[in-house]
Each structure stands twice: as structure tokens, then as C-alpha cells.
């Protein structure tokens, strides 16, 4: 039973436009949510996080929104750049540091 779901395996966006990556979860006890980015042949790297007590966190072009009532979070990238093309993993943390990852969404940003 997947507790963290990324229902879109891939997303294609034009350069300069907004990319919106979505993530749904089932466990209301998650403390933090994180997004990681992964390029081919590299390990995932941390991008941005949000506490369960917040509804928004922003870092430059990246903003994460959390809707606790819907058990949904999203990552917005504005403006999208070709270098943003990668696999994005949504992750949720419970019990201090146990992290559960979604299946990932592959983002293509077209020049």
C-alpha cells in the first residue's frame, strides 16, 4: 500500500512556463514533506521541504504548497528551465527520520 503517491509518471512543459508536480499521501501523521530531484546516473538531491504545520514554502523558483485537508502537496517551478529536466520525488517523513518516497515524476522542459 503506497502511502505517498505521484500519479503522473511524466510531465512535459515549455521553457519559461510553470511546472506543477503533484503528490498525494494517506498518512496524516507525517511530520515533514520533502522534494528531491534526480538526474540520470546521480543520486537524488534535496530540493525543498515543508513542515506539516505550514501551507507554503518558497525558495527562489521553487514553491511547495501543502493542503492537509486534501492530503495533497505540489511543487511549482516558475519559470521552468531546460536544466530542470529530471525525475522529481516527493517524500514524507514520519517518526523522526523514516522517509517514504513516491514513485517519481519525470519532468521534461522543452527549449
Amino acid at each position: 500500500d503506497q502511502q505517498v503517491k505521484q500519479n503522473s509518471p511524466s510531465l512535459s512543459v515549455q521553457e519559461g512556463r510553470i511546472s506543477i508536480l503533484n503528490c498525494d499521501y494517506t498518512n496524516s501523521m507525517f511530520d515533514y514533506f520533502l522534494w528531491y530531484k534526480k538526474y540520470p546516473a546521480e543520486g537524488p538531491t534535496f530540493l525543498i521541504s515543508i513542515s506539516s504545520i505550514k501551507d507554503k514554502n518558497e525558495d527562489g523558483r521553487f514553491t511547495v504548497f501543502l493542503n492537509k485537508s486534501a492530503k495533497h502537496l505540489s511543487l511549482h517551478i516558475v519559470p521552468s528551465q531546460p536544466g530542470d529536466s529530471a525525475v522529481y520525488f516527493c517524500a514524507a517523513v514520519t517518526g523522526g527520520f523514516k522517509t517514504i518516497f513516491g514513485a517519481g515524476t519525470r519532468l521534461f522542459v522543452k527549449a
Partner: protein
Amino acid sequence: DVKVTQSSRYLVKRTGEKVFLECVQDMDHENMFWYRQDPGLGLRLIYFSYDVKMKEKGDIPEGYSVSREKKERFSLILESASTNQTSMYLCASSYQTGGSQPQHFGDGTRLSIL
């Protein structure tokens, strides 16, 4: 700069072999993790360790064991490799305190079991 190093990028082994995957971090992190990544399944936790000589099972520990004799090193052992253990294996580490601490990953070991 933080660094998690996995000993091999690619590894090919035969069914029934005992396989060792090594991971070293230079950040003095308390927590270390082993994941496998498979298409459509994301990253699944095999084992983690929150201190030297301490280990906890993750979501898919069957067929695996781990060893953490030193703080900086966390080894994953496939006791008797099987073809369904062909996968990308990722090691990660993080600070002990707080769930918001992100994990730092190595570049992965692509393991093929023939």
C-alpha cells in the same frame, strides 16, 4: 562539500553469490540508509541505522543484511543473490536531529544478478 560514496557504480554477480555493497560518508552523520530504486516503485527502504552497530529493518529487508561497525561506513549484504535483486541501490545519510533534515545520497550502484 558533503559526500556519500558508494564503492561501485556497476556490479554484475551470479545467482547464489554473497554480494557486498559499501557506502562511506564524510559528514559525521548519525543516520545511514539503504534503498533500492525500481521503475514505477520509487525508492524503497531496505535497512537503516541510527548509530554504530544499530540497525532497523525498512520496508523490504528480506534477503538483505547490513553492517555498521564504524560511524562513516554502512554495508549492505545480499546473503545469496537472486535475480529479483537486480536493481539500482542507493545509500544515503542524514543528521540525527529532526525529520526536516534531508538525506544526502550517493550516486548509486547498479547491480545485475545473472
